[in-house]
């Protein structure tokens, strides 16, 4: 399956967004580039930009490999993408508000009721609760894939706690350190104000009870969490406190943190802890990561939790297949960004098709993430397919299937020069009284030749993503 290469497609030759970069690249001494690649790794290790891999004692801190060839989008391509993303994000928030209130979309029969009611990500505790400023999902990472010059699809809406934005920022920082002259030659739109925008965005959705400038904090599960670096990084860049559950308690109807001078009220909590762990009194009683009673404070309107509890219902993979209907239902217009055709295995006809074509499809768990628990048919052995088929038959509603798309490629630098690898793109979206999208995002790249799995836990790497100021 021939993939569309974003730099050098076979048919049309070098694409315009890459022209200036290509000129620069041809002037470079290959040995110097190799050296720069090693420099990059040293920078990342020194600053401690690592992620923890579960179940690997020895290499408990690993780097996400970084490739020094940027992924480049033209201003025009970006504008088209952002229109589609904005529309989608509006629809996601409208859907959440509806699902937890009047449920019009269920009444209209556009989304099956049982898909929501029986969904683990749907929180009955949120019914009738309206978050401060009416925003449910404040920070969204929309995973986008491309298969040709003009075809972009949304692969996943990450509406809970999307991660990776620190890599977007550090990748740019590293590129600017390694190749300052490139940024003189080529005008790239900046991404480094993301933490500032995030802070403003969180402040804008503070609860009405917050007087004056709101106190904001980032809630992390702790320094052993795989994304701890990012939590610390964002708190640091925003200039807010990084708190753990053990620092917090409910004092006089507000969430407060234990400081060296006693308890201080928090108004906005950017939580990087899953719903289930947020409040042991409401959700998992064994959770030590959350704050007992925070849901009561939330219901009383005395704290903003970003993203709101229960947003997972919007990025559930089973709900995903209804996104075209959802977008149209709330915005009154066709979705600008399409979905990848998806078979819901809960439907008997679809299940039959999927079982018959399993070796051609990508089959995913409805609630899975991070590339775990999925089958890439064309890359799997016959035995793997058969085993997966058994799991599928045992619990069909747990799976969806999609065609194996020829994801676009972008070259990476290897020892033998440039070589194409499949990529995807995760732009980061901030929602408050407005929607803001930083020009760029995180490009994830499958480093193994031919591989379609870009997740860092499965051997994926990252690239700096450029949106040209043209």
């Amino acid at each position, binding site marked *: 399956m021939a993939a569309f290469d974003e730099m050098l497609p076979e048919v049309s030759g070098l694409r315009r967004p890459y022209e200036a970069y290509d000129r620069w690249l041809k002037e470079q001494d290959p040995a110097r580039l190799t050296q720069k690649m090693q420099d990059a790794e040293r920078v990342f*290790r*020194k*600053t*401690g930009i690592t992620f923890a891999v579960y179940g690997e004692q020895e290499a408990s801190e690993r780097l996400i490999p970084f490739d020094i060839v940027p992924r480049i989008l033209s201003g025009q391509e970006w504008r088209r993408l952002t229109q589609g993303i904005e529309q989608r994000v509006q629809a996601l928030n409208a859907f959440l508000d509806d699902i937890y209130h009047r449920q019009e979309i269920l009444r209209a029969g556009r989304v099956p009721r049982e898909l929501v009611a029986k969904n683990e990500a749907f929180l009955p505790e949120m019914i009738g609760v309206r978050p401060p400023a009416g925003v449910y999902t404040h920070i969204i990472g929309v995973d986008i894939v491309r298969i040709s010059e003009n075809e972009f699809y949304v692969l996943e809406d990450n509406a809970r706690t999307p991660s990776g934005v620190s890599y977007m920022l550090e990748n740019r920082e590293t590129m600017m350190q390694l190749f300052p002259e490139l940024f003189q030659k080529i005008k790239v739109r900046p991404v480094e104000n993301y933490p500032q925008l995030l802070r403003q965005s969180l402040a804008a959705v503070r609860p009405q009870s917050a007087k004056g400038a709101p106190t904001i904090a980032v809630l992390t599960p*702790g*320094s052993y969490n795989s994304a*701890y670096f990012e939590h*610390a990084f964002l*708190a*640091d860049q925003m200039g807010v*406190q*990084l*708190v*753990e559950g*053990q*620092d917090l308690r409910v004092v006089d109807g507000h969430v407060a*943190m*234990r*400081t*060296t*001078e*006693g308890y*201080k009220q928090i108004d906005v909590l950017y939580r990087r802890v899953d719903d289930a762990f947020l409040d042991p009194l409401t959700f998992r009683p064994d959770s030590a990561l959350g704050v007992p009673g925070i849901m009561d404070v939330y219901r009383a309107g005395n704290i903003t939790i970003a993203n709101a509890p229960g947003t997972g219902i919007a990025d559930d993979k089973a709900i995903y297949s209804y996104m075209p209907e959802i977008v149209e239902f709330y915005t009154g217009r066709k979705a600008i960004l399409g979905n990848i055709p998806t078979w819901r295995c809960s439907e008997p006809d679809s299940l039959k098709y999927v079982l018959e074509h399993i070796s051609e499809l990508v089959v995913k768990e409805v609630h899975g993430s991070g590339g775990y628990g999925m089958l890439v048919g064309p890359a799997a052995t016959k035995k793997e397919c058969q085993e997966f088929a058994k799991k599928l038959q045992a619990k069909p509603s747990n799976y969806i299937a999609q065609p194996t798309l020829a994801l676009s490629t972008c070259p990476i630098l290897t020892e033998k020069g440039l070589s194409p690898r499949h990529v995807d793109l995760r732009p980061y979206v901030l929602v408050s009284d407005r929607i803001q999208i930083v020009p760029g995002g995180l490009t994830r790249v499958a480093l193994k030749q031919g591989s379609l799995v870009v997740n860092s836990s499965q051997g994926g790497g990252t690239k700096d993503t450029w949106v040209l100021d043209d």
Partner: protein
Amino acid sequence: MLLGRTANGLYWMNRYIERAENMARLVDAGLRMALTRTQNASEEWNSVLLSAGSDYAFSQKYQDYTAANVSDFLLRDTSNPSSTMSSIETARNNARMVRTALTRETWESINEAWMSLKRMLARPIDERDLPTVLDAIKRETALIRGSFYGTMLRNEIFDFSQLGTYVERADNTARILDVKYYVLLPSLSWVGSTLDNYQWESILRSVSAHRSYRWVYEADYKPTNIADYLILNVRMPRSLTFCYRFLGEHLKFLADDYGERHACHATAEKIQALLKRGSIKDIFDHGLHEFLAEFIRDNTRLGDEIAQDYRFH
């Protein structure tokens, strides 16, 4: 505004950085003694372990007090929570936890120290390489200290860090003195024998003060001068008085900033007053060992009070 947990992390991060270096210094002094004396090397290593507070744990694992065993236990054994490797690891874990309170330079210096020492201490140390390893440990901790002092804002974050440093350092100096207090007693010999001279130099060496001593006192080692130097000298950066000067100062900054005094302030002032009032002769008259034992107890209490007063937990 500072989280209690963050203050706790800063405090222990600095205690462990200090401890990592102290272990190297103790081994250095022990090595020196073992090199210059042919007999009783095992006794010297025993006092090194006593000063490190690790004698009991060591005896559970080893029978022989040899250079190889002791340096391995104090420098690289991760089952010993006070070894240099464990200390650097704990310091880094704390630094990771309080990362948002540290400058990039400080964090990176700790992270790099951890990476380089982990590599260096991965395998048993060849005795011939021991001096190089000890130098490397001191250099790494010096780099941490340098980036810390050079880049950190002098606010409460700095205060809690310094409290950790000086509580640990005061404890360390007091223990070194207490383990060897008998060689400083005037009753044993006023005129130092060669043997005593080695002992005295070893004490000074374990606090990196064998050269600076001569700048302050006369060329000869005298037990009262050594005790005076390590306990009462205001300028000597590892003396008890010096440590308490800074503990007092940083506690005062906190009291002024927060507008509140706590039990720890009273304790620190009590200890400071004791150090200010006494001459070295008074201390010897009172009993050097008794003085040091009380000091170590009070110093530990101060640490506990700081943790409680500033809501570390």
